[in-house]
């Protein structure tokens, strides 16, 4: 099964082993060994780059002799999605991850970092772990029959239409960049412990922590925008295990970012920060385990199958955990930091309370996410927790975090403001909070959240305007984002509603403030439902994709979203019901009978004609007992399959009429048939109809804007030394 691509991966793996040897020799200060290790690292990186280029080329040239290309691409795929199909599956996304690690390693070498040696060590080992996964299942594996017979499939099986979205081009690479970057803070923490440097490691690590928060964060946010416009992924955030497993390390890194500030200010939290840096990376690996091993496949909307990686990933997690714990314990007494201040409400202590709250929040999300695995250990019947668990949890946690944000800003800048000023702002916030909610929800928590959030936004804006240097810009921007996110979540959930409506063709229906008319289905290969959409003074002709994807053989639907300042109108097609079909089509399992108008049909069984099998033709007939006007007939409509020519229907006619009775589809293993009978003469065909779900989502752009602010805050934190 060896080919150039797989060979490149193997070579890269082999060179990585050599890199490790030279890195170990250079640890003592051997310059020659250091230069050699760098060269080897570059070499292995070049091989990986070649492998990546090869895979891109394979996708662009439709090289379906590769199983991976065959699985995720097809000839008619848009060129951009052919590129994106690179990371459409496990093998390709691992290659991307390993390659990004090479890039990060090169940056580390170029920066001539003090702890370059240990960082490269950790990067190389992590890379090897991913490379081994790729050796187990190579993206360059040939399809069965290629090597023996030179068989190349004429076309690939295509990319899942759900993934044919512009976000597919950006979301996975950014997320993987975050995963790869998370290796660096971990490496710094290990270096710090090994060199008994418990304070200086964080000077260099700080940037990388912020960079990881930035990239992983942007990756998560992009996933949110994407999930919003896909049906059935539960909106922008559904607390799905796959979503949670990226959120968990991100939250820990956010806590670490705050911990680093405390340590730089007061020299406290030395052990905490080391532990946070280590656990954030272990959690990245755990997230890989949860999403790639298939353990959660019964519990997640984004399901993943097991391909036998589990043990390997567990082994690797244990490997890093044991090393970390061992190092940590061996230096435990040496890494003692300064104690925190005694004052209950000091600036630093308030931040520590916030970190603690965030950590508990993260821990509970982690427990919820891993519950299917945890409960599987202790019980015969594993169980999962529902989004409601996270939502309930988020209320007290969110209020506490927001409350602490308000308090910490008050403690820091409150003295500069007059009591009257603060009172006025407070009163205004309360008033605005009430006004914002009053017509939409009676829930008390909505009022508490909104009031706190508005107060905090005013605090931040006033700090920005007055240029108070005690509060750093990164914190002002990011925390303003957090407050805005809270308001956005309240509005887009508690102030929003949706209705399901069956729309009969050409009949206008009123749903809240809009008028919607179903106009029928388009006649293209990838059909869409057409609607006339009236809102305010505007009349738009809109379409929502609705078609059976041939390659995946599944129904694909897309919503139409009218993005608005006050609200988004979200129109989702649920089901298209052709009027004719209601009248003429029936699905029967064996021995079952049903009526189509004046005719009673019973399905007796299959009759398979293999006579012409030699010529490559198979005929399948459905034996039917048909009763009409007290006359009973035995009819057998069928389908013939001719090699390379597809299927042809062998229709029958209902005796005494000109009405066609045909076999539309069947399933031999389930013993089911789908039958069609022409309607009787002069029957009125009912109009087509469409079932749609219309949602009104208030101020959802607050959520989008808030993510931009949080990302901007992380970016500013990264730029600051």
């Amino acid at each position, binding site marked *: 099964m060896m080919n150039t691509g797989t060979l490149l991966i193997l070579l890269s793996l082999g060179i990585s082993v050599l890199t490790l040897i030279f890195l170990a020799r250079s640890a003592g200060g051997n310059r020659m060994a250091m230069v050699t290790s760098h060269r080897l690292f570059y070499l292995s990186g070049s091989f990986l780059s070649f492998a990546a280029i090869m895979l891109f080329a394979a996708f662009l040239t439709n090289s379906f002799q590769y199983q991976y290309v065959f699985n995720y691409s097809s000839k008619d795929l848009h060129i951009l999605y052919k590129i994106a199909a690179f990371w459409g599956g496990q093998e390709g996304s691992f290659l991307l991850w390993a390659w990004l690690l090479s890039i990060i390693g090169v940056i580390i070498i170029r920066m001539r970092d003090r702890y370059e040696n240990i960082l490269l060590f950790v990067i190389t080992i992590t890379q090897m772990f991913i490379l081994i996964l790729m050796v187990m299942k190579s993206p360059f594996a040939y399809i069965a029959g290629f090597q023996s017979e030179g068989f190349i499939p004429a076309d690939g099986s295509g990319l899942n239409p759900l993934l044919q979205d512009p976000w597919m081009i950006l979301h996975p690479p950014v997320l993987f960049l975050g995963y790869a970057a998370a290796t660096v803070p971990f490496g710094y923490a290990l270096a710090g412990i090994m060199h008994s440097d418990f304070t200086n490691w964080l000077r260099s690590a700080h940037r990388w922590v912020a960079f990881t928060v930035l990239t992983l964060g942007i990756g998560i946010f992009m996933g949110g925008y994407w999930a919003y416009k896909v049906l059935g992924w539960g909106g922008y955030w559904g607390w799905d295990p796959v979503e949670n497993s990226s959120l968990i390390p991100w939250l820990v890194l956010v806590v670490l970012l705050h911990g680093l500030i405390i340590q730089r200010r007061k020299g406290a939290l030395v052990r905490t920060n080391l532990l946070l840096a280590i656990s954030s990376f272990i959690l990245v690996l755990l997230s890989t385990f949860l999403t790639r091993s298939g353990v959660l496949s019964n519990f997640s*909307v984004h399901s993943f199958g097991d391909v036998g990686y589990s043990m390997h990933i567990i082994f690797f997690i244990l490997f890093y955990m044991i090393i970390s714990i061992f190092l940590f314990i061996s230096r435990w007494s040496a890494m003692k930091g300064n104690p925190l201040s005694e004052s209950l409400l000091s600036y630093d202590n308030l931040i520590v309370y916030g970190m603690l709250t965030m950590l508990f929040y993260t821990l509970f999300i982690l427990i919820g996410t891993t519950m299917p695995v945890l409960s599987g250990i202790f019980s015969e019947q594993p169980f999962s927790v*529902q989004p*409601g*668990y996270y939502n*309930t949890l988020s209320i*007290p946690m969110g209020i506490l975090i927001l409350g602490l944000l308000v308090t910490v800003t008050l403690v820091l800048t409150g003295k500069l403001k007059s009591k009257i000023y603060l009172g006025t702002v407070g009163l205004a916030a309360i008033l605005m909070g009430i006004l914002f909610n009053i017509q939409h929800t009676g829930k008390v928590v909505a009022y508490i959240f909104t009031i706190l959030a508005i107060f905090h936004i005013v605090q931040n804006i006033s700090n920005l305007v007055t240029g108070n240097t005690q509060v750093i810009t990164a914190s002002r921007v990011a925390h303003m984002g957090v407050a805005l996110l809270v308001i956005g979540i309240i509005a887009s959930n508690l102030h929003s509603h949706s209705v399901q409506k069956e729309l009969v063709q050409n009949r206008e229906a009123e749903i809240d403030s809009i008028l919607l008319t179903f106009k029928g289905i388009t006649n293209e290969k990838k059909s869409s439902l057409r609607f006339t959409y009236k809102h305010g003074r505007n009349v738009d002709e809109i379409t929502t994709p609705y078609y059976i994807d041939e390659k995946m053989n599944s129904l694909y639907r897309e919503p139409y979203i009218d993005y608005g300042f006050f609200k988004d109108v979200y129109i989702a097609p*649920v089901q298209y019901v052709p009027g004719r079909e209601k009248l003429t089509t029936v699905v029967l*399992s064996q021995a079952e009978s049903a009526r189509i108008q004046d005719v009673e049909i019973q399905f007796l069984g299959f009759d398979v004609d293999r006579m012409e099998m030699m010529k490559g033709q198979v005929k399948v007939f459905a034996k039917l007992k048909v009763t009409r006007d007290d006359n009973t007939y035995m009819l057998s409509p069928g389908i013939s399959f001719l090699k390379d020519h597809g299927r042809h229907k062998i229709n029958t006619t209902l005796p005494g009429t000109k009405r066609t009775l045909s076999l539309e589809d069947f399933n031999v293993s389930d013993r*089911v048939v789908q039958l069609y009978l022409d309607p009787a003469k002069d029957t009125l065909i009912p109009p087509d109809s469409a079932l749609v779900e219309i949602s009104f989502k208030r101020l959802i752009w607050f959520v989008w804007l808030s993510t931009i602010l949080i990302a901007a805050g992380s970016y500013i934190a990264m730029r600051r030394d």
Partner: protein
Amino acid sequence: MKAKHILLTILILFFGGVAFYSMSDMMTPYVSFDQARNSGQYVQVIGTLVKSKPVQHNEGTFSFFMEDEQGSRLKVVHTGTKPLNFDHATQVVALGNYNSSTQTFDADRLLVKCPSKYTKENK
């Protein structure tokens, strides 16, 4: 020092309480239809779509027949939208309660297990 420790203890107790409270409400065991029928509690059932029975849509609901791993069949009524890829599902997980008055399983959530985003069945 003391005040801080007391605060910390209160905080941790508070967190624990919150988590326990949210969890106890939201734990949903994996059971069969028979168990769901007997307990009447909020549970999840894993099974396959019965393809010989029609999938029905009405305003606000969507219903289909499902066969659990023990082989017993029940009509599942889902209040919500049919998930994408539903017809292509190899397995369906329905979360909800057994409704004794209509003798259906009322699911407020459906998970569809498909040949997935990351792997496909190559058989």
